[in-house]
Protein backbone atom coordinates (compact mmCIF):
# COMPACT_ATOMS: atom_id res chain seq x y z
CA UNK A 1 0.00 0.00 0.00
CA UNK A 2 1.16 3.52 -0.77
CA UNK A 3 2.49 5.33 2.33
CA UNK A 4 0.35 8.25 3.41
CA UNK A 5 0.14 10.92 6.10
CA UNK A 6 -3.23 11.45 7.76
CA UNK A 7 -4.65 14.72 9.03
CA UNK A 8 -7.64 14.75 11.38
CA UNK A 9 -9.16 18.23 11.23
CA UNK A 10 -12.07 19.08 13.52
CA UNK A 11 -13.75 21.67 11.29
CA UNK A 12 -14.56 21.95 7.61
CA UNK A 13 -12.54 25.19 7.38
CA UNK A 14 -9.48 23.46 8.81
CA UNK A 15 -9.94 20.58 6.34
CA UNK A 16 -10.12 23.02 3.41
CA UNK A 17 -6.96 24.73 4.62
CA UNK A 18 -5.09 21.42 4.66
CA UNK A 19 -6.43 20.41 1.24
CA UNK A 20 -5.41 23.80 -0.17
CA UNK A 21 -1.93 23.39 1.28
CA UNK A 22 -1.28 20.01 -0.40
CA UNK A 23 -3.07 20.52 -3.72
CA UNK A 24 -3.94 17.38 -5.62
CA UNK A 25 -1.63 15.29 -3.39
CA UNK A 26 -4.32 15.32 -0.71
CA UNK A 27 -7.77 13.82 -0.65
CA UNK A 28 -10.76 13.70 1.64
CA UNK A 29 -10.99 10.42 3.58
CA UNK A 30 -14.30 9.26 5.03
CA UNK A 31 -15.55 5.68 4.50
CA UNK A 32 -12.43 4.68 2.59
CA UNK A 33 -14.08 1.89 0.60
CA UNK A 34 -12.93 3.45 -2.67
CA UNK A 35 -9.94 5.55 -1.58
CA UNK A 36 -8.13 2.83 0.39
CA UNK A 37 -8.36 0.46 -2.56
CA UNK A 38 -6.80 3.09 -4.81
CA UNK A 39 -3.99 3.39 -2.28
CA UNK A 40 -3.63 -0.37 -2.02
CA UNK A 41 -3.40 -0.65 -5.78
CA UNK A 42 -0.79 2.17 -5.79
CA UNK A 43 -2.59 4.11 -8.46
CA UNK A 44 -0.80 7.16 -9.82
CA UNK A 45 -3.67 9.46 -8.76
CA UNK A 46 -3.92 8.04 -5.22
CA UNK A 47 -3.14 10.80 -2.72
CA UNK A 48 -0.17 11.04 -0.35
CA UNK A 49 -2.10 12.95 2.30
CA UNK A 50 -5.48 11.91 3.66
CA UNK A 51 -7.73 14.46 5.28
CA UNK A 52 -9.92 12.37 7.56
CA UNK A 53 -13.25 14.16 7.95
CA UNK A 54 -14.88 11.59 10.21
CA UNK A 55 -14.24 13.64 13.34
CA UNK A 56 -15.82 16.77 11.93
CA UNK A 57 -19.17 17.50 13.54
CA UNK A 58 -22.23 18.17 11.42
CA UNK A 59 -21.32 16.02 8.45
CA UNK A 60 -23.18 12.90 9.53
CA UNK A 61 -26.93 13.40 9.88
CA UNK A 62 -30.29 12.97 8.24
CA UNK A 63 -32.72 15.74 9.13
CA UNK A 64 -35.96 17.19 7.88
CA UNK A 65 -35.75 20.83 6.87
CA UNK A 66 -38.34 23.55 7.42
CA UNK A 67 -39.83 23.07 3.93
CA UNK A 68 -40.44 19.36 4.46
CA UNK A 69 -37.40 18.27 2.47
CA UNK A 70 -34.48 16.31 3.88
CA UNK A 71 -30.82 17.22 4.26
CA UNK A 72 -28.24 14.44 4.51
CA UNK A 73 -24.68 15.04 5.72
CA UNK A 74 -22.09 13.81 3.23
CA UNK A 75 -20.36 11.61 5.83
CA UNK A 76 -23.59 9.73 6.62
CA UNK A 77 -23.15 5.99 6.14
CA UNK A 78 -25.14 4.31 3.40
CA UNK A 79 -26.42 1.86 6.02
CA UNK A 80 -27.82 4.82 7.98
CA UNK A 81 -29.65 6.01 4.87
CA UNK A 82 -31.02 2.51 4.31
CA UNK A 83 -32.27 2.36 7.93
CA UNK A 84 -33.76 5.86 7.99
CA UNK A 85 -37.51 5.90 8.63
CA UNK A 86 -37.62 9.51 7.46
CA UNK A 87 -36.17 8.61 4.08
CA UNK A 88 -38.31 5.47 3.83
CA UNK A 89 -41.39 7.57 4.42
CA UNK A 90 -40.51 10.43 2.05
CA UNK A 91 -38.31 8.87 -0.64
CA UNK A 92 -38.71 5.08 -0.62
CA UNK A 93 -37.11 4.79 -4.09
CA UNK A 94 -33.88 6.29 -2.70
CA UNK A 95 -33.81 3.71 0.10
CA UNK A 96 -34.47 0.96 -2.44
CA UNK A 97 -31.48 2.17 -4.48
CA UNK A 98 -29.20 2.44 -1.43
CA UNK A 99 -30.06 -1.14 -0.45
CA UNK A 100 -28.83 -2.27 -3.86
CA UNK A 101 -25.40 -0.69 -3.39
CA UNK A 102 -22.66 -3.16 -2.58
CA UNK A 103 -22.97 -5.43 0.50
CA UNK A 104 -24.26 -4.72 4.05
CA UNK A 105 -20.65 -4.71 5.33
CA UNK A 106 -19.57 -2.10 2.81
CA UNK A 107 -22.71 -0.01 3.34
CA UNK A 108 -21.70 0.17 7.01
CA UNK A 109 -18.46 1.86 5.99
CA UNK A 110 -19.33 3.76 2.79
CA UNK A 111 -20.66 7.29 2.98
CA UNK A 112 -23.11 9.14 0.77
CA UNK A 113 -20.38 11.60 -0.27
CA UNK A 114 -18.01 8.77 -1.10
CA UNK A 115 -20.62 7.02 -3.21
CA UNK A 116 -21.35 10.20 -5.16
CA UNK A 117 -17.69 11.08 -5.76
CA UNK A 118 -16.17 7.62 -6.13
CA UNK A 119 -13.56 6.85 -8.76
CA UNK A 120 -14.58 4.65 -11.69
CA UNK A 121 -14.10 0.89 -11.32
CA UNK A 122 -12.67 0.16 -14.77
CA UNK A 123 -10.61 -3.03 -14.46
CA UNK A 124 -7.73 -1.46 -16.39
CA UNK A 125 -7.50 1.57 -14.06
CA UNK A 126 -7.88 -0.55 -10.92
CA UNK A 127 -5.39 -3.04 -12.34
CA UNK A 128 -2.77 -0.28 -12.56
CA UNK A 129 -2.75 0.25 -16.32
CA UNK A 130 -1.34 3.60 -17.37
CA UNK A 131 -4.62 5.03 -18.61
CA UNK A 132 -6.03 8.57 -18.71
CA UNK A 133 -6.87 8.45 -15.00
CA UNK A 134 -3.58 6.84 -14.04
CA UNK A 135 -0.81 8.94 -15.56
CA UNK A 136 -1.20 7.73 -19.15
CA UNK A 137 -2.87 8.92 -22.32
CA UNK A 138 -4.95 6.03 -23.60
CA UNK A 139 -8.19 4.25 -22.68
CA UNK A 140 -7.63 0.50 -22.60
CA UNK A 141 -11.32 -0.06 -22.01
CA UNK A 142 -12.12 1.41 -25.42
CA UNK A 143 -10.04 -1.26 -27.15
CA UNK A 144 -10.09 -4.12 -24.64
CA UNK A 145 -12.80 -5.89 -22.65
CA UNK A 146 -15.49 -3.25 -22.29
CA UNK A 147 -18.42 -5.52 -21.56
CA UNK A 148 -19.05 -4.34 -17.98
CA UNK A 149 -17.32 -1.20 -16.76
CA UNK A 150 -17.44 0.90 -19.93
CA UNK A 151 -19.76 3.35 -21.54
CA UNK A 152 -22.18 2.40 -24.27
CA UNK A 153 -23.02 6.08 -24.81
CA UNK A 154 -19.66 7.42 -26.02
CA UNK A 155 -16.90 8.96 -23.95
CA UNK A 156 -14.45 11.78 -23.55
CA UNK A 157 -10.94 10.28 -23.45
CA UNK A 158 -11.91 7.86 -20.62
CA UNK A 159 -14.72 5.43 -21.51
CA UNK A 160 -15.41 4.06 -18.02
CA UNK A 161 -18.96 4.28 -16.72
CA UNK A 162 -19.85 6.34 -13.69
CA UNK A 163 -20.44 3.62 -11.09
CA UNK A 164 -22.50 5.29 -8.34
CA UNK A 165 -26.14 4.41 -7.73
CA UNK A 166 -26.95 7.17 -5.24
CA UNK A 167 -26.56 9.92 -7.85
CA UNK A 168 -28.80 8.06 -10.29
CA UNK A 169 -31.48 7.72 -7.61
CA UNK A 170 -31.17 11.32 -6.34
CA UNK A 171 -31.61 13.05 -9.71
CA UNK A 172 -35.36 12.23 -10.04
CA UNK A 173 -35.91 14.07 -6.74
CA UNK A 174 -34.08 17.18 -8.07
CA UNK A 175 -31.65 16.85 -5.16
CA UNK A 176 -28.85 19.38 -4.76
CA UNK A 177 -25.34 19.07 -3.37
CA UNK A 178 -23.70 21.58 -1.05
CA UNK A 179 -19.96 22.07 -1.23
CA UNK A 180 -17.71 23.94 1.16
CA UNK A 181 -15.07 25.84 -0.80
CA UNK A 182 -12.42 28.44 0.13
CA UNK A 183 -14.80 31.04 -1.35
CA UNK A 184 -17.84 29.89 0.63
CA UNK A 185 -20.72 27.46 0.08
CA UNK A 186 -21.42 26.31 -3.48
CA UNK A 187 -24.64 24.56 -4.45
CA UNK A 188 -25.02 22.30 -7.48
CA UNK A 189 -27.64 19.95 -8.83
CA UNK A 190 -26.55 16.30 -8.79
CA UNK A 191 -26.30 16.40 -12.58
CA UNK A 192 -23.93 19.35 -12.29
CA UNK A 193 -21.97 17.56 -9.56
CA UNK A 194 -21.27 14.43 -11.64
CA UNK A 195 -21.35 15.49 -15.30
CA UNK A 196 -18.97 12.73 -16.43
CA UNK A 197 -15.36 12.93 -17.58
CA UNK A 198 -14.15 16.40 -16.69
CA UNK A 199 -10.70 17.97 -16.69
CA UNK A 200 -10.42 19.30 -13.15
CA UNK A 201 -7.14 20.48 -11.61
CA UNK A 202 -5.15 18.62 -14.26
CA UNK A 203 -6.99 15.34 -13.76
CA UNK A 204 -9.82 13.48 -15.40
CA UNK A 205 -12.60 12.82 -12.92
CA UNK A 206 -16.33 12.12 -13.04
CA UNK A 207 -17.24 15.00 -10.71
CA UNK A 208 -16.46 18.71 -10.59
CA UNK A 209 -15.26 18.93 -6.97
CA UNK A 210 -11.89 20.69 -6.90
CA UNK A 211 -8.95 19.59 -4.77
CA UNK A 212 -9.73 22.14 -2.03
CA UNK A 213 -13.50 21.66 -1.89
CA UNK A 214 -15.54 19.32 0.30
CA UNK A 215 -18.98 17.91 -0.41
CA UNK A 216 -20.81 18.59 2.85
CA UNK A 217 -24.44 17.63 2.28
CA UNK A 218 -27.20 16.69 -0.10
CA UNK A 219 -30.55 18.44 0.09
CA UNK A 220 -33.66 16.73 -1.26
CA UNK A 221 -36.71 18.93 -1.85
CA UNK A 222 -40.04 17.91 -0.29
CA UNK A 223 -41.75 15.02 -2.11
CA UNK A 224 -44.18 16.23 -4.77
CA UNK A 225 -47.78 15.06 -4.57
CA UNK A 226 -48.78 12.28 -6.96
CA UNK A 227 -45.24 11.07 -7.56
CA UNK A 228 -44.47 7.39 -8.02
CA UNK A 229 -40.85 6.32 -8.35
CA UNK A 230 -38.91 3.14 -8.95
CA UNK A 231 -35.27 2.03 -9.00
CA UNK A 232 -34.07 -1.09 -10.75
CA UNK A 233 -30.59 -2.43 -11.24
CA UNK A 234 -29.14 -5.26 -13.30
CA UNK A 235 -25.83 -6.68 -12.11
CA UNK A 236 -23.84 -9.88 -12.64
CA UNK A 237 -24.41 -11.05 -9.05
CA UNK A 238 -27.53 -9.91 -7.26
CA UNK A 239 -25.78 -9.58 -3.92
CA UNK A 240 -23.34 -6.74 -4.46
CA UNK A 241 -22.04 -5.86 -7.93
CA UNK A 242 -22.00 -2.53 -9.73
CA UNK A 243 -24.75 -1.91 -12.25
CA UNK A 244 -24.53 -3.32 -15.76
CA UNK A 245 -27.49 -0.97 -16.21
CA UNK A 246 -29.83 0.70 -13.78
CA UNK A 247 -32.84 2.98 -13.99
CA UNK A 248 -34.29 5.50 -11.57
CA UNK A 249 -37.64 6.74 -12.79
CA UNK A 250 -40.27 9.01 -11.27
CA UNK A 251 -43.66 9.96 -12.66
CA UNK A 252 -45.80 12.80 -11.42
CA UNK A 253 -49.35 11.64 -12.05
CA UNK A 254 -52.75 13.25 -12.20
CA UNK A 255 -54.94 10.18 -12.14
CA UNK A 256 -53.27 8.09 -14.85
CA UNK A 257 -51.94 11.09 -16.80
CA UNK A 258 -48.24 11.80 -16.60
CA UNK A 259 -47.67 15.49 -15.89
CA UNK A 260 -43.93 15.26 -15.44
CA UNK A 261 -41.23 12.61 -15.22
CA UNK A 262 -37.59 11.95 -14.58
CA UNK A 263 -35.84 9.08 -16.35
CA UNK A 264 -32.22 8.47 -15.31
CA UNK A 265 -30.08 5.55 -16.46
CA UNK A 266 -27.03 4.38 -14.52
CA UNK A 267 -24.19 2.04 -15.46
CA UNK A 268 -24.27 2.78 -19.18
CA UNK A 269 -22.50 6.15 -19.54
CA UNK A 270 -19.77 8.24 -17.96
CA UNK A 271 -22.43 9.96 -15.88
CA UNK A 272 -25.93 9.26 -14.60
CA UNK A 273 -27.74 9.71 -17.87
CA UNK A 274 -30.94 11.70 -17.75
CA UNK A 275 -32.95 10.66 -20.80
CA UNK A 276 -34.88 13.83 -21.60
CA UNK A 277 -36.20 12.41 -24.91
CA UNK A 278 -38.16 9.79 -22.95
CA UNK A 279 -39.27 12.40 -20.41
CA UNK A 280 -40.64 14.57 -23.24
CA UNK A 281 -42.34 11.54 -24.78
CA UNK A 282 -44.03 10.57 -21.50
CA UNK A 283 -45.42 14.05 -20.80
CA UNK A 284 -49.19 14.02 -21.17
CA UNK A 285 -49.36 10.28 -21.88
CA UNK A 286 -51.61 7.90 -19.98
CA UNK A 287 -49.79 5.37 -17.84
CA UNK A 288 -50.71 1.99 -19.28
CA UNK A 289 -49.39 -1.51 -19.78
CA UNK A 290 -48.27 -0.64 -23.32
CA UNK A 291 -46.49 2.61 -22.49
CA UNK A 292 -43.11 0.99 -21.75
CA UNK A 293 -42.86 -0.67 -25.16
CA UNK A 294 -43.83 2.62 -26.81
CA UNK A 295 -41.37 4.72 -24.79
CA UNK A 296 -38.50 2.42 -25.71
CA UNK A 297 -38.74 3.60 -29.31
CA UNK A 298 -37.41 7.04 -28.34
CA UNK A 299 -34.93 5.88 -25.69
CA UNK A 300 -31.14 6.10 -26.00
CA UNK A 301 -31.11 7.16 -29.63
CA UNK A 302 -27.53 8.42 -29.18
CA UNK A 303 -26.20 5.04 -28.04
CA UNK A 304 -22.62 4.43 -29.16
CA UNK A 305 -21.72 1.02 -27.79
CA UNK A 306 -18.16 -0.23 -27.79
CA UNK A 307 -17.29 -3.64 -29.24
CA UNK A 308 -18.52 -5.77 -26.35
CA UNK A 309 -21.17 -3.73 -24.54
CA UNK A 310 -24.16 -3.21 -26.83
CA UNK A 311 -26.07 -5.46 -24.44
CA UNK A 312 -26.03 -2.62 -21.87
CA UNK A 313 -28.36 -0.65 -24.14
CA UNK A 314 -30.73 -3.62 -24.42
CA UNK A 315 -30.66 -3.97 -20.64
CA UNK A 316 -31.38 -0.28 -20.11
CA UNK A 317 -34.31 -0.39 -22.51
CA UNK A 318 -35.60 -3.50 -20.77
CA UNK A 319 -35.43 -1.64 -17.46
CA UNK A 320 -37.48 1.19 -18.93
CA UNK A 321 -40.21 -1.25 -19.90
CA UNK A 322 -40.18 -3.03 -16.55
CA UNK A 323 -39.91 0.26 -14.60
CA UNK A 324 -42.98 1.73 -16.26
CA UNK A 325 -44.85 -1.56 -15.83
CA UNK A 326 -43.98 -1.54 -12.15
CA UNK A 327 -45.28 2.00 -11.71
CA UNK A 328 -48.47 1.02 -13.50
CA UNK A 329 -49.15 -1.91 -11.20
Amino acid at each position, binding site marked *: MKRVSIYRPSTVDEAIQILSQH*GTSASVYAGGTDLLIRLKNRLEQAPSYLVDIKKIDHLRYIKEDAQGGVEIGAATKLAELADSRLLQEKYPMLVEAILKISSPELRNASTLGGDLLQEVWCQYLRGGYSCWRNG*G*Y*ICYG*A*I*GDNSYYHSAMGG*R*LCYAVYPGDAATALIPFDARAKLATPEGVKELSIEQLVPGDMLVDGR*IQSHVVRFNEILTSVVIPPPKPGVRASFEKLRPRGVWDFAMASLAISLQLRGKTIDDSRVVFGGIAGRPLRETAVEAYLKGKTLSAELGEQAVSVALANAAPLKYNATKIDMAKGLLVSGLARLNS
Partner: protein
Amino acid sequence: MQTIEGLLLEPVGCLAEFPPQPFHEIAVRFFGRKGKASPSGSRSYWHLLNLMQAAETPLGAERRNIVDELEAEAVAGASIYEDVLPVLAELKTMGIRLDIATSLSHVAAMSFVERFSLGKFFSGVWTRDDRLQGAAGGVKPAPLLAALAGASLAPAATMFLTDTVEGIKAARSAGVHPVLMMNDPDEARRLAMHNPAGGVVSLHEVPDFIRLISFQNKAAQNKAAQNKRA
Protein backbone atom coordinates in the same frame (compact mmCIF):
# COMPACT_ATOMS: atom_id res chain seq x y z
CA MET B 1 4.62 15.15 -21.83
CA GLN B 2 5.57 18.70 -22.80
CA THR B 3 2.73 21.09 -23.60
CA ILE B 4 1.74 20.52 -27.22
CA GLU B 5 2.25 23.36 -29.70
CA GLY B 6 1.92 21.61 -33.01
CA LEU B 7 0.12 18.73 -34.63
CA LEU B 8 1.30 16.89 -37.73
CA LEU B 9 -1.45 15.13 -39.62
CA GLU B 10 -1.28 12.42 -42.22
CA PRO B 11 -4.38 12.57 -44.44
CA VAL B 12 -4.42 8.81 -45.04
CA GLY B 13 -6.28 7.13 -42.17
CA CYS B 14 -6.28 10.17 -39.86
CA LEU B 15 -8.24 12.77 -41.74
CA ALA B 16 -9.93 10.58 -44.32
CA GLU B 17 -10.66 7.03 -45.34
CA PHE B 18 -8.74 6.30 -48.54
CA PRO B 19 -9.45 3.42 -50.92
CA PRO B 20 -6.74 0.73 -50.71
CA GLN B 21 -6.71 -0.23 -54.39
CA PRO B 22 -4.65 2.63 -55.89
CA PHE B 23 -1.88 2.20 -53.29
CA HIS B 24 -1.92 -1.55 -53.79
CA GLU B 25 -1.70 -1.13 -57.54
CA ILE B 26 1.39 1.09 -57.23
CA ALA B 27 2.95 -1.51 -54.95
CA VAL B 28 2.20 -4.37 -57.36
CA ARG B 29 3.21 -2.58 -60.56
CA PHE B 30 6.43 -0.93 -59.44
CA PHE B 31 7.61 -2.49 -56.18
CA GLY B 32 6.96 -6.22 -56.65
CA ARG B 33 4.20 -6.58 -54.07
CA LYS B 34 2.26 -9.83 -54.34
CA GLY B 35 -1.05 -10.90 -52.86
CA LYS B 36 -4.35 -9.17 -52.29
CA ALA B 37 -4.90 -5.56 -51.26
CA SER B 38 -5.55 -4.98 -47.56
CA PRO B 39 -9.13 -3.88 -46.92
CA SER B 40 -7.66 -0.86 -45.12
CA GLY B 41 -6.48 2.05 -47.27
CA SER B 42 -4.19 3.11 -44.48
CA ARG B 43 -2.46 -0.25 -44.26
CA SER B 44 -2.09 -0.49 -48.04
CA TYR B 45 -0.55 2.96 -48.03
CA TRP B 46 1.98 2.21 -45.30
CA HIS B 47 2.87 -1.13 -46.94
CA LEU B 48 3.59 0.83 -50.08
CA LEU B 49 5.77 3.27 -48.13
CA ASN B 50 7.77 0.34 -46.73
CA LEU B 51 8.43 -0.81 -50.28
CA MET B 52 9.24 2.71 -51.49
CA GLN B 53 11.68 3.15 -48.63
CA ALA B 54 13.37 -0.18 -49.38
CA ALA B 55 13.65 0.47 -53.13
CA GLU B 56 17.23 0.99 -54.20
CA THR B 57 16.64 3.08 -57.30
CA PRO B 58 14.21 5.97 -57.67
CA LEU B 59 11.37 5.67 -60.15
CA GLY B 60 11.82 7.12 -63.63
CA ALA B 61 9.71 10.04 -64.84
CA GLU B 62 7.19 7.88 -66.69
CA ARG B 63 6.56 5.65 -63.68
CA ARG B 64 6.36 8.66 -61.40
CA ASN B 65 3.58 10.03 -63.60
CA ILE B 66 1.64 6.78 -63.22
CA VAL B 67 2.16 6.88 -59.45
CA ASP B 68 0.85 10.46 -59.42
CA GLU B 69 -2.21 9.41 -61.39
CA LEU B 70 -2.96 6.54 -59.02
CA GLU B 71 -2.49 8.76 -55.98
CA ALA B 72 -4.84 11.30 -57.56
CA GLU B 73 -7.33 8.45 -57.91
CA ALA B 74 -6.87 7.64 -54.21
CA VAL B 75 -7.53 11.27 -53.26
CA ALA B 76 -10.62 11.34 -55.48
CA GLY B 77 -11.95 8.23 -53.73
CA ALA B 78 -11.18 9.48 -50.19
CA SER B 79 -13.98 10.37 -47.79
CA ILE B 80 -13.17 12.79 -45.01
CA TYR B 81 -14.11 11.79 -41.43
CA GLU B 82 -17.10 13.74 -40.18
CA ASP B 83 -15.34 15.19 -37.12
CA VAL B 84 -12.35 16.59 -39.03
CA LEU B 85 -13.61 20.09 -39.82
CA PRO B 86 -14.95 21.01 -36.34
CA VAL B 87 -11.88 19.54 -34.65
CA LEU B 88 -9.43 21.38 -36.90
CA ALA B 89 -11.35 24.60 -36.25
CA GLU B 90 -11.21 23.99 -32.48
CA LEU B 91 -7.49 23.21 -32.53
CA LYS B 92 -6.83 26.35 -34.55
CA THR B 93 -8.79 28.40 -31.97
CA MET B 94 -6.63 26.84 -29.24
CA GLY B 95 -3.55 28.20 -31.00
CA ILE B 96 -2.19 24.82 -32.05
CA ARG B 97 -0.12 24.91 -35.23
CA LEU B 98 -1.44 22.39 -37.74
CA ASP B 99 0.63 20.97 -40.58
CA ILE B 100 0.06 18.15 -43.00
CA ALA B 101 3.04 15.80 -42.99
CA THR B 102 2.52 13.04 -45.49
CA SER B 103 4.40 10.62 -47.69
CA LEU B 104 1.97 11.33 -50.52
CA SER B 105 3.31 13.37 -53.43
CA HIS B 106 3.03 17.15 -53.23
CA VAL B 107 0.43 17.12 -56.00
CA ALA B 108 -1.72 14.52 -54.22
CA ALA B 109 -1.46 16.26 -50.85
CA MET B 110 -2.42 19.65 -52.30
CA SER B 111 -5.27 18.09 -54.21
CA PHE B 112 -6.52 16.52 -50.95
CA VAL B 113 -6.37 19.87 -49.15
CA GLU B 114 -8.17 21.61 -52.00
CA ARG B 115 -10.83 18.94 -52.45
CA PHE B 116 -11.95 19.21 -48.82
CA SER B 117 -11.29 22.97 -48.45
CA LEU B 118 -8.78 22.46 -45.64
CA GLY B 119 -6.32 25.17 -46.65
CA LYS B 120 -7.45 27.64 -43.99
CA PHE B 121 -6.54 25.24 -41.19
CA PHE B 122 -3.01 24.27 -42.17
CA SER B 123 0.10 26.39 -41.85
CA GLY B 124 2.12 24.03 -44.05
CA VAL B 125 1.93 20.94 -46.24
CA TRP B 126 5.02 18.72 -46.15
CA THR B 127 5.31 15.78 -48.53
CA ARG B 128 7.79 13.23 -49.82
CA ASP B 129 8.72 15.72 -52.56
CA ASP B 130 9.80 18.46 -50.20
CA ARG B 131 13.50 18.99 -50.03
CA LEU B 132 14.38 21.16 -47.10
CA GLN B 133 17.83 22.28 -45.97
CA GLY B 134 19.58 19.94 -48.39
CA ALA B 135 17.56 16.86 -47.37
CA ALA B 136 16.66 14.53 -50.19
CA GLY B 137 12.96 14.26 -49.38
CA GLY B 138 11.43 10.82 -49.21
CA VAL B 139 8.80 8.88 -47.30
CA LYS B 140 7.89 8.18 -43.65
CA PRO B 141 9.98 10.24 -41.24
CA ALA B 142 11.32 12.56 -43.95
CA PRO B 143 8.13 14.65 -44.32
CA LEU B 144 7.85 14.80 -40.53
CA LEU B 145 11.42 16.04 -40.23
CA ALA B 146 10.80 18.58 -42.98
CA ALA B 147 7.66 19.78 -41.19
CA LEU B 148 9.47 20.15 -37.86
CA ALA B 149 12.30 22.10 -39.46
CA GLY B 150 10.07 24.17 -41.71
CA ALA B 151 7.60 25.03 -38.96
CA SER B 152 10.29 25.47 -36.26
CA LEU B 153 8.39 23.06 -34.02
CA ALA B 154 10.12 21.34 -31.12
CA PRO B 155 9.63 17.56 -31.59
CA ALA B 156 8.83 17.14 -27.89
CA ALA B 157 5.99 19.65 -28.26
CA THR B 158 4.56 17.99 -31.36
CA MET B 159 2.14 15.13 -31.93
CA PHE B 160 1.70 12.95 -34.98
CA LEU B 161 -1.55 11.07 -35.38
CA THR B 162 -1.33 7.63 -36.91
CA ASP B 163 -3.20 4.33 -37.16
CA THR B 164 -0.35 2.01 -38.15
CA VAL B 165 2.77 0.59 -36.56
CA GLU B 166 4.86 2.15 -39.33
CA GLY B 167 3.39 5.53 -38.42
CA ILE B 168 4.33 5.01 -34.77
CA LYS B 169 7.88 4.12 -35.77
CA ALA B 170 8.16 7.06 -38.17
CA ALA B 171 7.01 9.46 -35.45
CA ARG B 172 9.43 7.98 -32.92
CA SER B 173 12.32 8.29 -35.33
CA ALA B 174 11.43 11.96 -35.92
CA GLY B 175 11.23 12.49 -32.15
CA VAL B 176 7.56 13.51 -32.10
CA HIS B 177 4.82 11.92 -29.98
CA PRO B 178 2.96 9.21 -31.90
CA VAL B 179 -0.74 9.26 -31.01
CA LEU B 180 -2.74 6.26 -32.02
CA MET B 181 -6.03 6.74 -33.82
CA MET B 182 -7.97 3.78 -32.43
CA ASN B 183 -10.44 3.47 -35.32
CA ASP B 184 -10.53 -0.32 -35.15
CA PRO B 185 -10.44 -1.70 -31.58
CA ASP B 186 -8.79 -5.02 -32.50
CA GLU B 187 -6.07 -3.37 -34.55
CA ALA B 188 -5.66 -0.66 -31.90
CA ARG B 189 -5.16 -3.30 -29.19
CA ARG B 190 -2.31 -4.77 -31.25
CA LEU B 191 -0.82 -1.35 -31.95
CA ALA B 192 -1.02 -0.31 -28.30
CA MET B 193 1.78 -2.86 -27.69
CA HIS B 194 4.06 -0.64 -29.77
CA ASN B 195 4.11 1.98 -27.10
CA PRO B 196 2.43 5.01 -28.65
CA ALA B 197 2.52 8.18 -26.57
CA GLY B 198 -1.27 8.07 -26.37
CA GLY B 199 -4.41 7.00 -28.13
CA VAL B 200 -7.72 8.55 -29.09
CA VAL B 201 -10.91 6.83 -30.15
CA SER B 202 -11.81 9.67 -32.47
CA LEU B 203 -10.34 12.92 -33.63
CA HIS B 204 -12.77 14.93 -31.49
CA GLU B 205 -10.78 13.84 -28.40
CA VAL B 206 -7.55 15.48 -29.58
CA PRO B 207 -8.37 18.99 -28.27
CA ASP B 208 -9.15 17.54 -24.82
CA PHE B 209 -5.94 15.49 -24.95
CA ILE B 210 -3.92 18.65 -25.61
CA ARG B 211 -5.83 20.59 -22.93
CA LEU B 212 -5.22 17.83 -20.37
CA ILE B 213 -1.46 17.92 -20.98
CA SER B 214 -1.50 21.68 -20.66
CA PHE B 215 -3.53 21.49 -17.40
CA GLN B 216 -1.19 18.83 -16.02
CA ASN B 217 1.87 20.91 -16.79
CA LYS B 218 0.33 24.00 -15.22
CA ALA B 219 -0.65 21.98 -12.13
CA ALA B 220 2.91 20.61 -11.88
CA GLN B 221 4.34 24.12 -12.20
CA ASN B 222 2.01 25.44 -9.50
CA LYS B 223 2.98 22.56 -7.23
CA ALA B 224 6.69 23.20 -7.82
CA ALA B 225 6.20 26.91 -7.08
CA GLN B 226 4.26 26.03 -3.93
CA ASN B 227 7.00 23.65 -2.75
CA LYS B 228 9.60 26.33 -3.41
CA ARG B 229 7.65 28.86 -1.34
CA ALA B 230 7.25 26.32 1.47
